[in-house]
């Protein structure tokens, strides 16, 4: 039985087109594909405009930037990722200890749109950063209101000075899944609390090895979290990255 009590669309302050910015479901807020082509043909201007729209979304939903759990930006090419991932995002979230989970992916965008942004937030709750001890991460995993959102977790072996696990895709995937499980545990949950796992590899051929690594970790299929495998940009030193969402706070979130 669903526990949802309130569903409302979130509208911008000025609404000439009559299109909602996002949706609020109880305390959760989601906006998908936010863009700012009206900012002109410059990625920096569009990125800053779309981050301003993110702030407006949260204010219109009854919250603020402190409630944002996770964001995903999309750009058209790998070369465009870095400033979106770094400088412009850090203008909005300068505190390394208090940032949402975040990733920047490459996707074909409609003409005129140089960036799109998805945002998820939990109203009435603020972020708690969680790190696997000994594994550095620029973009964090956060627990917020009983939900856990990772950025893209890599197969770095703890306390090795940033060394990636050996064993190719399967070895890295296994380590990334171990790191994810550690993050859930540090948030107060366990594997059964995972509601979504998504892996990212450079080419489609990686997917089977990622599935095998997960199957080896969870031989019982009924206990195995569902995995969606995607192909997208990942940094050169990695073969696979894993993103996870978990609900560790019960049904009242």
């Amino acid at each position, binding site marked *: 039985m669903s526990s949802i009590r309130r569903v*409302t669309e979130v509208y911008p302050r000025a609404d000439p087109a009559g299109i909602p910015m996002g949706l609020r479901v109880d305390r959760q807020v989601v906006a998908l594909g936010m863009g700012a*082509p009206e900012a002109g043909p410059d990625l920096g201007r569009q990125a800053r405009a779309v981050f301003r729209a993110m702030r407006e979304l949260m204010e219109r939903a009854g919250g603020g930037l402190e409630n944002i759990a996770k964001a*995903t930006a999309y750009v058209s090419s790998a070369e465009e990722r870095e400033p979106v991932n770094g400088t412009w995002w850090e203008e909005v979230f300068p505190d390394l200890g208090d940032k949402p989970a975040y990733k920047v992916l490459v996707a074909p965008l409609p003409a005129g749109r140089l960036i799109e942004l998805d945002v998820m937030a939990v109203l009435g709750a603020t972020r708690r950063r969680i790190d696997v001890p000994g594994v550095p991460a620029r973009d964090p995993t956060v627990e917020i209101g009983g939900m856990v959102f990772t950025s893209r977790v890599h197969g770095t072996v703890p306390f090795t000075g940033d060394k990636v696990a050996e064993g190719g895709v399967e070895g890295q995937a296994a380590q990334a899944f171990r790191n994810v499980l550690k993050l859930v545990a540090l948030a107060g949950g366990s594997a059964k609390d995972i509601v979504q796992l998504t892996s990212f590899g450079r080419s489609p051929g990686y997917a089977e090895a990622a599935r095998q690594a997960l199957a080896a970790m969870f031989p019982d299929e009924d206990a195995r979290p569902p995995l969606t495998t995607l192909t997208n940009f990942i940094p050169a030193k990695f073969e696979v990255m894993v993103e996870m969402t978990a609900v560790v706070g019960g049904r009242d979130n």
Partner: protein
Amino acid sequence: MRGFSELIGAPQGRPEALGLRADDLVYGSGVTGRDRRTGRCAPGLLRQADDALSAVEEYLRDISGSLDNVARVSFFLRDPRDITKVNEVWTARFPHSQNRPTYKFMRGQFADEEEVRLDFFAVLGQERNCLYLPKVAHGNPIPMAVRMGRYLFSSRVLPFDPATGEPGRDGPEQARFAAANTDAILRMSQMAWSAVSQGRAFVADPDDDEFVRAEWNRRFGATARAPLHITRYRAGALAVLLEILAAE
């Protein structure tokens, strides 16, 4: 809320999240007929509308649903009058006249070959209960509202006199009729105004806003009032339309 996940693409597909599942409620936004592998749209509105509904079907199938779970669709079109063309696709996808989702259609702005984009709500594990009002019917093939499980999704409720089926003479009268017809929908779905979580009024003339707000506020009495968002919109003789979303 344990059933919480993004709707994302299949392997080798595009990575964008197109929606969200929260318990039994599914919300999709910005769905197009764009091919997920090539990023291109097929030529023509009809083909794109059909491809967009295929995308919805595919996403719902991934979470053990189908188009039978769709409650409401919002179409964004280059020219809203083209909804009559989209109706061909709509009735083919939803052939049973008494069992269709409801929809609304609005003008969208598209920079490239896109002709249509849609948002949708679906409810998993529930049957669609279509609600119709005597004498107050859309010209398009949709019910006035859909009740699915604990949720009620209305279309843009028409400002027609429930006794005659004729539009109100002016904005204030249309505001009264639209609100009264919304009363009737809530009664049919056995829900109270206290279950309404949001209203959206489509009002042609800003001078009529106060009448729409007065009708809205009157229905909540001392209880917590759901927000009412007003969008400026004109559709021929229809000066006021009212859309609600409710959950009990």
